[in-house]
């Protein structure tokens, strides 16, 4: 029987990098996050700060990504052909959307969570803004569930991490505030663009053939 595709969860970098606990359920590995999200795959919109090939010609890239709450690492190798093709062409820094599997790795001194991107795409600001809103909403829902001791994963996460929920609320609030600011900017830009378009159309209407002096173009011959 073919498994149903795993849903891509929305988790802020701040919470993601603090996730250390892995659960295995019917052959699949999930990362349990501090507020009780169970994720096998995530969807994130973040800035690609840095890309670095690990060793020469290994075609394995380490990516450093940041959302408004913090940064995390992603590794792309030859088994993610779609993602690697895009990575090769990107000039950093660039805003990207990432879909990928997440795993916890045991480092020497601590556990490290990282992402294996399946798909990467360059996106624009409004995509990031909505991602932040959506992720804020999902995070607040999880916090609420934990406050009310609702759900197995919330209980387990509380037992393992015992997170300071006010700290997480503060992170969410800050993320929303940053986005709120460029909401205003985006709106301004759109307004200017619309005005320019209108002006341009108007100007276009008045063009007449005589206005074009093309003699410059022929002089060189």
């Amino acid at each position: 029987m073919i498994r149903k595709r795993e849903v891509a969860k929305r988790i802020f970098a701040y919470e993601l990098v603090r996730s250390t606990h892995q659960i295995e359920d019917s052959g699949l590995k999930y990362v349990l996050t501090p507020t009780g999200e169970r994720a096998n795959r995530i969807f994130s919109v973040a800035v690609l700060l840095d890309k670095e090939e690990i060793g020469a010609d290994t075609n394995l890239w380490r990516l450093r990504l940041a959302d408004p709450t913090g940064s995390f690492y992603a590794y792309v190798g030859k088994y993610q052909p779609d993602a690697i093709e895009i990575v090769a062409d990107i000039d950093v820094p660039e805003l990207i959307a990432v879909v990928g599997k997440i795993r916890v790795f045991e480092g020497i001194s601590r556990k490290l969570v990282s992402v294996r991107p399946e798909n990467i795409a360059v996106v624009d600001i409004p995509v990031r803004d909505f991602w932040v809103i959506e992720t804020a909403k999902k995070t607040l829902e999880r916090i609420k569930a934990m406050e009310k001791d609702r759900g197995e994963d919330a209980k387990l996460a509380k037992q393992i991490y015992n997170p300071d929920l006010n700290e997480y609320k503060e992170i969410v609030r800050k993320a929303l505030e940053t986005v709120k600011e460029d909401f205003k900017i985006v709106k301004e830009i759109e307004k200017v663009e619309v005005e320019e378009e209108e002006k341009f159309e108007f100007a276009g209407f008045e063009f007449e053939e005589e206005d074009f002096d093309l003699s410059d173009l022929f002089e060189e011959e």
Partner: protein
Amino acid sequence: MSRAEKLTDQIMERLKSLNVRVKREEVLKRMKLLIDEFKVPESEAVRTIMNYLAREYGISREELFVREAPLVKIADITKPNQWISLKAKVVQLWDSTSPNVSQVGLIGDETGIIKFVIWAKAGMPEVEEGKSYLFRNVVTDSFQGRLQVNVTRTSNITEINEDIQLPPREIEVVGALVAFQQNSGLIKRCEHCNRVLTKGVCPIHGKVKGYDDLRIKGVLDDGENIYEIILNEENIKDLTGIGLKDAIKIAQENLDKSAVLNELKSKLLGRYLRVKGIKGSRYLLVREVEFFKPKVEDLEKLLEVLT
């Protein structure tokens, strides 16, 4: 009517449906003996008599012991190999390619829609699209990862005079387009059956010339659920400005069909889409689609909660 008589009649009914002739008195005598005299539990009494009849009249035990499967709703179907009964309407019939299959298509009730297969061996009368039926003793099954119900020899289909309401089939979803599936982009279809060709070969009609089409099979993910969506040429043009003609041009200029796919990916992957469309058993056929734009009010509402 005594309990023994009632049970006897139930057994007689069953025997009648199997075309076996047994004298009622014979069954009743045994039933009375077991129930009234020996005070055997009812279920045991029935079982004993059934066993006796199976031996005596050479009926296959399998047929005799078919129990009435519980009546459930389609939304309750969650695993394969469950015997169930359904009251459902035939939503759609498909052309079957296999001689083993009598009919195949979709049935639905007010909770959902599911694929069904009537096997040729079942020897059932044919069902019609738009009519409602009671499907008794059908079995759930999983085929290529999807649940379906099979109508077999032991099943029973009777038309019912009831118009079963189907769930609202048009749904609206806002989610991120997280993946493209195979056979997306510029594809070729068979001119006879519109199926997608693989390397110029139609699964039914073999090697054909085919015609070009543009479509995307993708995965929309809202963080709670995934929806497999199909965007047609019109949808793609609405979103990206690339129509079939433009796509063909891109492919020719690059001498490569995958250039179209890459172009579409760069314009659509990772973006939030709002889609409206009809949900089939697997795919959401998109009717309307647009890029989803966030609203500052959504953000302010969340901030209010926090302060």
